């Protein structure tokens, strides 16, 4: 008979954390932790771990990682909680490394000099996060714990970013040079992505209902929306320009509404087209796959069709629909960045401007918030779907 092995594995040495820790240790020692640039464009000089944060800092980083590795071998109850605390604290205090680095190496007298983050630091960050994910996984998913970690790490980073120590960081410099533009890009990005998701949700609901009522439409509708999904974004954006321009030329009244061949119009159209496939598919599946025997049981107990829909079908379908919204939102946030190429604005404009000017930190100023938005949307919708599941989700 199968006997649960989970309790025994709790106390077995974990091989994943040591593997990740050793990799992190090697990379943080081998690669540059940071770079000092005399100005925005000139390539800077890199600094390894010891040079960047001194022997004290290097020792601290090394001992933290080593401690984490050793902890994985310890035969101790509750070791994963200690591990979690250690990793969470390290991640929260990670910006301190950059602070120390800047204060040690930034020349006092040159206002254009700036520090930027090196590959070693990125690797450290990445592997610490992987170790954190692994530890969380071993502890079993606990929402409260995850939320606490996000608040502690995120809050600490925000405080550090606003402090003086990181003011010289080129990423912060790029932001400080254009706070208004950043804010505008943020709202444009949100408006485009969520606008597209909202419109496609309404359309998808209609299409899903049509498919439910007339099964003959299922193949053509699904075929069309997956066809749209197949065409690469750049091509869709490009293909929309000519017809839209022609349309505006033919009906100048459209131009007064702000509709043009480039800009938000083709961007929104393309985003909606892209969002249709995941939306339609999930909505349709969600609404059709309510088990017939459940519906029959409901009818048998005297529910009418209206009650059946609101008390049975919708609650069961909602998590699946929200999963569709999650996929669509993440996709739309990414594609909105591409839409900057046709002048739609958003964080993508920083990415492509930065690429054009070879200003890497401007690229980061666009890319990092885009990723953060996508991750945030993922987290929010995952939690929402989990909280709406009729049965409590078990690990």
């Amino acid at each position, binding site marked *: *008979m199968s*006997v*649960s*092995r989970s*309790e*025994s594995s709790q106390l077995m040495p974990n091989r994943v954390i040591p593997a990740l820790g050793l990799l992190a240790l090697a990379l943080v020692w081998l690669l540059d932790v940071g770079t000092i640039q005399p100005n925005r464009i000139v390539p800077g000089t890199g600094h390894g771990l010891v040079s960047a944060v001194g022997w004290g800092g290097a020792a601290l980083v090394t001992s933290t990682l080593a401690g984490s590795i050793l902890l994985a071998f310890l035969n101790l109850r509750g070791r994963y909680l200690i591990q979690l605390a250690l990793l969470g604290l390290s991640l929260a205090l990670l910006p301190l490394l950059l602070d120390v680095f800047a204060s040690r190496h930034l020349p006092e007298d040159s206002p254009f000099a700036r520090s930027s983050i090196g590959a070693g630091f990125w690797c450290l960050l990445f592997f610490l996060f992987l170790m954190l994910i692994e530890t969380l996984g071993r502890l079993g998913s606990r929402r409260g714990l995850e939320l606490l970690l996000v608040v502690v790490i995120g809050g600490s980073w925000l405080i550090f970013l606003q402090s003086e120590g990181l003011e010289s960081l080129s990423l912060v410099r790029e932001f400080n040079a254009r706070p208004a533009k950043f804010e505008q890009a943020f709202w444009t990005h949100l408006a485009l992505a969520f606008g597209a998701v909202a419109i496609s949700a309404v359309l998808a609901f209609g299409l899903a209902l049509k498919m439910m009522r007339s099964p003959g439409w299922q193949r053509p509708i699904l075929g069309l929306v997956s066809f749209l999904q197949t065409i690469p974004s750049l091509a869709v954006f490009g293909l929309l320009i000519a017809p839209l321009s022609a349309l505006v030329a033919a009906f100048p009244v459209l131009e007064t509404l702000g509709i043009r061949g480039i800009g938000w119009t083709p961007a929104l159209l393309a985003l909606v087209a892209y969002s249709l496939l995941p939306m339609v598919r999930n909505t349709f599946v969600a609404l059709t796959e309510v088990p017939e025997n459940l519906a029959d049981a409901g009818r048998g107990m005297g529910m009418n069709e209206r009650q059946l829909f609101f008390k049975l079908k919708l609650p069961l379908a909602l998590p699946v629909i929200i999963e569709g919204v999650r996929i669509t939102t993440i996709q739309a946030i990414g594609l909105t960045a591409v839409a900057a190429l046709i002048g739609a604005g958003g964080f993508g404009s920083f990415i492509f401007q930065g690429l054009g000017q070879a200003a890497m930190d401007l690229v980061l100023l666009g890319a990092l918030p885009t990723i953060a938005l996508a991750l945030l949307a993922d987290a929010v919708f995952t939690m929402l779907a989990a909280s709406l599941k009729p049965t409590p989700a078990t690990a």
Partner: protein
Amino acid sequence: MIELKHVTRRFGPTVAVDNINLTIETGEVCVLVGSSGCGKSTTLRMINRLLPHSEGEILVDGEDITTMNAEQLRLNMGYVIQGTGLFPHWTVARNIAMVPQLLKWPRDRIDARVHELMTLLDLDPATHANKYPQQLSGGQAQRVGVARALAADPNILLMDEPFGALDAITRENLQLEMLRIQKQVRKTTVFVTHDIDEALKLATRIAVMDQGRIIQHDTPENILRRPASEFVENLVGKQDRGLKLMSLRPVRQLMQAHPAPKRPEPGAEGLKEEDNLRLALSVMLWQGAEQVPVFNARGEETGVITRERLIQEGA
């Protein structure tokens, strides 16, 4: 012959099988019976080394299995499991041919063997050979599972609740089938089940297991007559032990034989020599008869069985 000597299996701190000793003679059907979690499947899976044993020795024909190559060991043991485990991407014929193929038999020998086994298990080769497992009924699929296990003519057959997922009628059919096949092929069989009736029907000896230990290892009759503990007594069912005992014995043992087989009277109804005593009792009760004629396989009347004798000596 399979011998388990002081075999223990632990999963972490839990002991699944606790210091058991068990000898299974060549050609016998040993049924391990017990409730779920008692260690019967673990014991079975240790015999073909799907699970390593923590302590003790397991010998197959006198040889310690840990000294053998695990794959070689398993190639010489048929293995049948509850979910059949047929490869869904292979046809029935190819599934049956699995082990012969691993043993690199020549093509025509494999084909002949597959044909032979399908016939043995009452599967029509013409209609079923090229079907896929999903296209079979549960009973057919398990027949294929048994055929696959017998394919390379192994000496040993390990069966882990093979009929557990089937409906009652199909299960009954397959049990009878198994008895018939066992008579022909005489495999040393270890059979795991939680169903005591299945155990009584199929076993030459039963090992009752509870909490990782063997409580009693004996013939079905002795298990019924002399249960070693209250646990075994409850397992076999205290109250209807009498009927269960009757169902172990064939009519042949209690009938009063005629000096010579007689031609039956036309339209006469009766029992067959192989029918069990329980059936005989049932027939008498239903017909209100004091005695019932018994026929042999050729349809000749070879004797009669009386109600008096049945009641006195049946159980």
